[in-house]
């Protein structure tokens, strides 16, 4: 009996192995589906022209889109407000007659429970019958490849590397709010430039021991190796072995103090940043911080005093700027009209909707999915009416926008508020450029 069982088990294993050995890997992808058009309502070519369109999610009266966000997330993030931005934008466009005689409809707002947005994406395509997917504001993006395979125009918040394409898989239909390519370890000149501007010479960086954060720390290191000479600044402290959720950074701050650090940056979440700032205050470390991910008004209201004099970077114009670009003013007005609070995620939703409508406009009245994708991918300086520094969509899927040049909007935390700095009237973005080892400043609209 025992031998029989063993034999059956061995046989089962052998069958599985043989079948496995006789097989290879599937390369079949779903056939691309095509369809249609649009614009921002105020500037639509032929806004009233309704040409018959045969595309998923498009009727004579509607263009349906749907999105997915990590509404239920353990971090308490306001990712769901991305839907608000899309709705506010669509309301504005629809109030002006819609696009090509059709109303824009956000038909589905899905919550990617358990980070499982692959399933939700399939739901958007098969149950909700959408023409395009927007917004995508998720912690993970497991549905990316499904959308690539189906060639669906997709717009979202680029925090995951799945948005970026490469030569083999360019992912031309995935559009982040300000480009799709993320390079965590690229030697951007921003931080050395800022050190030069603020007369800081010794830099410390702290990162979690996860791949993305550690690469970010490597990027900081590389940026000082490549651009630090002109700034007379060097990286004197690096720690990229922090446990996620760490609650004690006293030893690290003590070591930074000993090393004379006067400029600190982090590749951590707000939790880690606050822990660091509290410890810096306790140990009286006289340093400012450069915070790439801290444009959060609740955060600055609660912890702003800990970060007095620190710099906050965004790739969009922050709404504290006095001379607001047209696009930003429209966003703020629409959000106010809708009774919704402006947030980074709702702005992302707004930008996604704007790019989608721009794509529709470029595609023309007989639009389809491919035409929308192609329409966007020919734009070389997309700014969303001045909210962004300018995205070159002919290359923004697979490479850094402009090597050696980093443009951003900067504000300084002053009296627990974001105060824009380095911005000039009509030119909110400051660009740091390495010209033959010399860090120079450029201003861009």
């Amino acid at each position, binding site marked *: 009996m025992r031998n029989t069982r063993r034999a059956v088990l061995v046989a089962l294993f052998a069958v599985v192995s043989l079948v496995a050995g006789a097989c290879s890997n599937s390369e079949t992808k779903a056939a691309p589906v095509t369809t249609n058009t649009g614009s921002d309502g105020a500037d639509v070519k032929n806004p009233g022209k309704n040409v018959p369109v045969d595309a998923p999610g498009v009727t004579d009266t509607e263009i349906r889109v749907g999105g997915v966000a990590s509404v239920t997330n353990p971090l*308490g993030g306001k990712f769901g407000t991305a839907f608000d931005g899309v709705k506010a934008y669509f309301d504005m466009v629809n109030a002006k007659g819609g696009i090509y005689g059709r109303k824009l409809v956000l038909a589905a707002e899905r919550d990617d429970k358990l980070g499982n947005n692959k399933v939700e994406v399939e739901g958007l395509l098969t149950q909700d019958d959408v023409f395009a997917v927007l917004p995508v504001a998720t912690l993970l993006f497991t549905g990316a490849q499904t959308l690539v395979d189906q060639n669906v125009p997709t717009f979202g918040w680029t925090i995951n590397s799945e948005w970026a394409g490469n030569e083999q898989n360019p992912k031309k239909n995935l559009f982040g709010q300000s480009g799709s390519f993320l390079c965590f370890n690229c030697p951007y000149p921003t931080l050395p430039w800022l050190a030069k501007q603020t007369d800081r010479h010794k830099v410390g960086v702290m990162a979690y021991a996860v791949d993305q954060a550690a690469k970010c720390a490597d990027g900081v290191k590389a940026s000082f190796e490549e651009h630090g000479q002109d700034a007379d600044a060097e990286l004197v402290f690096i720690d990229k072995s922090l446990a996620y959720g760490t609650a004690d950074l006293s030893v690290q701050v003590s070591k930074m103090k000993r090393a004379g650090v006067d400029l600190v940056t982090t590749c951590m979440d707000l939790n880690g940043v606050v822990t660091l700032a509290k410890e810096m205050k306790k140990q009286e470390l006289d340093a400012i911080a450069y915070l790439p991910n801290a444009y959060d008004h609740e955060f600055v209201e609660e912890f702003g005093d800990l970060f007095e004099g620190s710099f906050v970077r965004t790739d969009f114009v922050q709404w504290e700027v006095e001379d607001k670009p047209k696009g930003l003013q429209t966003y703020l007005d629409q959000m106010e009209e809708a009774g919704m609070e402006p947030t980074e995620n709702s702005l992302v939703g707004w930008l996604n909707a704007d790019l989608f409508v721009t794509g529709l406009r470029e595609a023309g009245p007989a639009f389809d999915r491919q035409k929308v994708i192609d329409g966007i991918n020919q734009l070389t300086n997309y700014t969303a009416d001045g909210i962004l520094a300018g995205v070159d969509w002919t290359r923004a899927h697979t490479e850094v926008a402009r090597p050696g040049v980093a443009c951003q909007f900067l504000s300084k935390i002053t009296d627990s508020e974001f105060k824009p700095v380095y911005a000039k009237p009509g030119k909110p973005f400051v660009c740091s450029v390495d010209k033959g080892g010399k860090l120079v400043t450029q201003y861009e609209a």
Partner: protein
Amino acid sequence: MAGEILEYAVRGVPIGCVFALMAVGLVLTYKTSGVFNLAFAAQAYTSAVVFYEVRKEHEWPLLPAALLAVVVVAPLIGVILDRFLYRYQRTAGSLAKLITSLGLLVAIPEIVRLIFGSGSKKNPPALWWVKRTDDFLWPQGSRFVLDAGQIATLAFTAIAVTGLAIMFSRGGIGLRMRAVVESPRLVQLQGIDASRVSLASWMLSSLLAGLAGVLIAPLFAQLNSLDFFTLLVAAIAACVIGSLTNIVATFIGGIGLGILQAELAGFLPTDSILATGLRPGLPFLVLFGLLLFRRSARTSHEVTDPLSGVDPPPPPPAASLRPSWMTMGTRVFAVTVAVLGLVLALFVLDEFWLSVVTSGVVLAVVLLSIVLTTGVGGTISLSQAAFAAIGAFTTAQLTTNFNLSVLVAMVAGALVAAAVGAVLSLPIIRLAGIYPALATLAFALMFENVLAPLSWVSGGATPLTVPRPLVGPIDFAGNRAFLLLSVGILAVLSVAVIMIRQGTTGRFLDAIRESEPAASAVGINPIRPRLVAFVAGAGVAGFGGGLVASFNGQANYAANFTFYLGLVWLVLVITAGFRSVQAAIISGIFFYVLPQLLDRLFRWPGNYLTSNPEVSGVTKSVLDFIEPEWSLGVAFILFGFGALTYAKHPEGIIEAQTTKSIRKVLGWIDKARGKGPTPASEQLVTQVGGGR
């Protein structure tokens, strides 16, 4: 050098105190209730949220807010846990109690989020007369400065440890609490009200959980239940230093862990692979090391009631008592239902539901590993998700870098996971009581914190892609084809699990479970069959992990294999019946389908109001109140509460319901025949009636 060692040691003390406070709370609960209460973290989180709400949102003064959160709400939770849950488990083994606490760990934070909302709760208030902990620093300007939060933690930890040490060393209530854990019935015979003593134990330990929660919350910029659990797990190492019983040794262990962490941060080169590997996983490495090398961890700590012999035996498996015709009928019925379900899935469901169901079937393959490891092998393992991840990463690396066929790569993934399981099992299966669970917990967290982030393991920030299989002319790229493949694999592996369970290994393990000394006396080596079950379980999990990766197109740790997901899977399978293959299958499908069904349910009121704008009054208010975002929380609450039934039905809900159904059917048949109860139905009636 000596100065630096001293400096880092001093800097490690405050965080060591945090570990110590959590660890002392765990040990207190274990000593006074016999429960290794992993839900301690959830209880702490609850009090922290209550304190946040009243102190910050409603701007109560400090003392009333603290009293409500720590002295009222926390002990009240203890009362609820004792009266409605643990009083029925007083004579249950520590494993049953651990499983119940796992269920609570999953359910409580979701209940809290339902009540208080899931929005971010930034800047938790300190247990001090300040707005933020760093508003009060002492001594100002000195080299070592403490903030208000640290001062409060140091003070309350010292008070708690001293008080508890005195309580347990001077007899009285401490002695009675321990006695109730040993045998409530013997205590009752001495004229002591065991019920009241147990209630006092739970109130006291819950009060400590509440205090810990309120003290620890300001360490973080915002409240998140997972942060509390991470700290608790780090504190478990300190508990093991104190052998789960010694309060003072536990306290010292906690402080020692904080100091060790600080010394490593000070002296290891911060840009080195050693630091990246060692520092994030330090508490888990220490815990794992302690469990492997401490002799006491190999000696059973299981508290057994001397009067437990009067308890009736657990009910036998329903399948073993039903007549052969009914067994055959059940099998035919099960196959018919399965085939009908498959046909329904293939031809009726749309792509979305097909994807949901396929996710469940694929997960069921991973869950079969829990049946093998825990159900058949008797080793409670919290690392099955890690084994699945090992299988997924191996599959991904082999298909990406060596262009290997994905099915071959899955088999290789299973073998690698089995090999890791073999190495791990050698020390683990020798551990006694709850220690195997703790050791697998330590391994799972080490994997999550140290190994999974490494790019040569997981591919790094961008998950590695995994293709769908292609067998000869059959392409499994489509979801329907992949469902068929998954069902086939699930069927094959289910048969294999049943054969192991009913074969020599399974029978040896049954004998060992009944009485290890007796089994050894008849020549059964208790180690070998356990090892076989553990290694086979790891292999099945690894294969399942590869299948999950192939279905999703990528090996994504954060989406599919986190420790927390593994915890929920274990709770689900144990609830359904951890010895049963059908429990694993149903659990896998349930895990994905239930949240989607709840999502539809909770979306309905909003959709109804949209299409019926004329609705007003109370109906509108009620319908408005329901949020679609509740679906996942409610699903997890149901999963968690399911584990609470374990004490009543250790055989699992499915087995219990099967037994009940068989009894009913046999009763109807007997009645129809006009006969008295048959031996089988009589036996079932007796067993069910006399069940624990």
